């Protein structure tokens, strides 16, 4: 079920502040953010955020398409490299 419209989109306050500062030229190399739960707003378009995935900060360059998604969606928390070939090696 989607979020009620009357609440407006959820964004952590500090992100708004940082985005504003960043428009003025601060935060070179992207805004560091732990706020995966924040919605991407139209005023974030064109900025780069470094979104924490629990281990690393993943650079996310915000494009127009991304508005309405959450930051966490662009910073995968799991890595999977397929099941190992080691099993095959063991058999032979």
């Amino acid at each position, binding site marked *: 079920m989607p979020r009620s419209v009357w609440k407006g989109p959820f964004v952590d306050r500090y992100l708004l502040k940082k985005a504003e500062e960043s428009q003025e030229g601060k935060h070179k190399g992207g805004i560091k953010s732990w706020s995966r739960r924040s919605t991407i707003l139209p005023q974030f378009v064109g900025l780069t955020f470094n979104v924490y995935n629990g281990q690393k900060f993943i650079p996310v360059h915000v494009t127009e398409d991304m508005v309405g998604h959450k930051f966490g969606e662009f910073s*995968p928390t799991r890595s999977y490299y397929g099941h190992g070939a080691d099993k*095959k090696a063991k058999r032979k």
Partner: protein
Amino acid sequence: MARIAGVNIPTNKRVTIALRYIHGIGAAKAAEICEKVGIAPERRVNELSDSEVLQIRETIDTDYMVEGDLRREVAVNIKRLMDQGCYRGLRHRRGLPVRGQRTHTNARTRKGPAKPIAGKKK
């Protein structure tokens, strides 16, 4: 035989049923269309006059997205998710369930037939 929305040729079934042969029209929309055009849903397609068929065709053309257009839109939406690099896009790329279902077991619709794992049995 009535041709509606391009290639579809529904049979001599009841109108509400026959309309469902069109991709993008299910039970609800079929009933809606019947009401809009003013055709009793019990009537069969081969009982319809040409003008009634034409009316149905027109309402579908103007008010509904069906067949090729619909398929294309869905494909474009999926493509957009994949290009964005968001989580849902990644799941589409991998061919895994997109909406958080478990993949430890099941998920066969997305993953396809089970692949045997070499050396699993003793």
